[in-house]
């Protein structure tokens, strides 16, 4: 019952978020600022995690697939498929839910309890749209780039360990090119766009309806991350059913 009530409030809030903005120029500036904060600001974390996971996956595959009957290039192929299909979208999205989601929920939640949202409303601003829409647009634009970036860096990490002696680098590269299907990348980037919407709108929702004190904002931010992660998992399943 509680779930449907929450869902209802979420839908109503999204209605407010997507109602026609009164002044485009202000939104434009805010989208640029959010691209910088939420997008560019997430590059280092994405890079570090992707390069290590790319390396580790390649090592694991090399161990698992160690057999005279399996060509070495299959290691590169498996590492690539793992990165492109799931890691660079779903896992990176979960990690970004932790980073970006908690920051959005606590930022907006703090604005709620310190009456900054009331102050915006007094100024005639549609505060839900003003605060949440630029973040949604910015992340939906930028997160797919992060996913593509993660694929490259992760595959690069694999190449690095290949060069360090795990396998022949040329076999690794052959594996990358083996059965290359650009639809897999499209699929992954589409998923990431949906995940970006989920993370930002869910975190914005929990921040926007925070009440009480800083303790409650902390709780709202935790709930935001947990709910975003669960929704990412559910939508990952749905999108995989639809798109593959």
């Amino acid at each position, binding site marked *: 019952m509680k779930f449907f009530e929450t869902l209802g409030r979420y839908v109503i809030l999204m209605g407010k978020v997507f109602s026609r903005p009164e002044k485009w120029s202000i939104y434009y500036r805010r989208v640029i600022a959010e691209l910088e904060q939420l997008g560019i600001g997430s590059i280092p974390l994405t890079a570090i995690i992707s390069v290590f996971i790319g390396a580790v996956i390649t090592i694991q595959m090399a161990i698992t697939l160690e057999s005279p009957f399996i060509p070495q290039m299959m290691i590169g192929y498996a590492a690539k498929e793992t990165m492109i299909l799931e890691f660079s979208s779903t896992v990176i999205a979960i990690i970004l839910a932790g980073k970006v989601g908690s920051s959005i929920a606590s930022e907006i939640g703090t*604005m709620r309890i*310190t009456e*900054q949202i009331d*102050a*915006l409303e007094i100024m*005639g*601003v549609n505060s839900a749209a003003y605060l949440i829409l630029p973040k949604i647009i910015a992340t939906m634009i930028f997160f797919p780039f992060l996913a593509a970036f993660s694929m490259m860096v992760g595959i690069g990490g694999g190449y690095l360990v290949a060069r360090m002696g795990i396998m022949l680098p040329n076999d690794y590269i052959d594996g990358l090119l083996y059965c290359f299907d650009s639809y897999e990348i499209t699929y992954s980037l589409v998923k990431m766009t949906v995940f970006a919407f989920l993370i930002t709108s869910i975190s914005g929702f929990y921040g926007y309806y925070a009440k009480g004190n800083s303790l409650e904002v902390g709780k709202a931010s935790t709930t935001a991350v947990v709910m975003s992660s669960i929704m990412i998992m559910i939508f990952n399943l749905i999108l995989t059913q639809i798109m593959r």
Partner: protein
Amino acid sequence: MIKCENIFKSFEGRTVLNDISITFETGKTNLIIGRSGSGKTVLLKTLVGLHEPDEGKIFFDDICYTDLKFKARKAIRKDIGMIFQGGALIDSSTVFDNIKLPLDLFTDQTEAEKRERVEFCLERVELSHAPHLYPSELSGGMIKRAAIARAIVLNPRYLFCDEPNSGLDPQTSIVIDNLIQSITREYNITTIINTHDMNSVMEIGEKIVYIHTGYKWWEGTKDDILSSDNQELNDFVFASAMAKRAKNNLL
């Protein structure tokens, strides 16, 4: 002039405002006083439209605000300035950008015009030295000054202040009170101030309404307040030693 008639407001079945009717006068500092939790903030937010009343009507001069739709309300919002208890400055913007924001949202002025207006308001509240600072870098008094500047940047006709001197030392409180009063007179604004501070009542109280447990318990002027025989009001008023002395001087 702002008038409310028979306002009721409850949250989750608990009534916070009970049949409140008050007329607030133009060009005067109207004070809403009462103990913490008595419903002052809810009343103020209901008057400005941040809460919808369950029942009752609110008038801004001759316009019935409660009858208006969201779009039509925006025209009146433009005439409303509000100072929130904690200042409610936008944390991610400088003092300058905070004060400029209403101009960005409501006007089509050029950047130069906006700059000029912001600088004028900064000067009015004596903050000309701090436009580049962020809210986290300001003292309590400076936050209130910046909040006042933001509230008056559009030349409001109605000014709402929720405990404008809470958390300030007595000296700074008086400065802020006097600033609000002089702005009220200078521009002939209808100003409504929430406070539980008897110093403010004696300094700048012109019309005073006492709220107790969500009811309008008493209304009058600051001269009446010392000679009232209302028990709850007296308990509130004479909890402060200063008010006691003032009463003794009166006798």
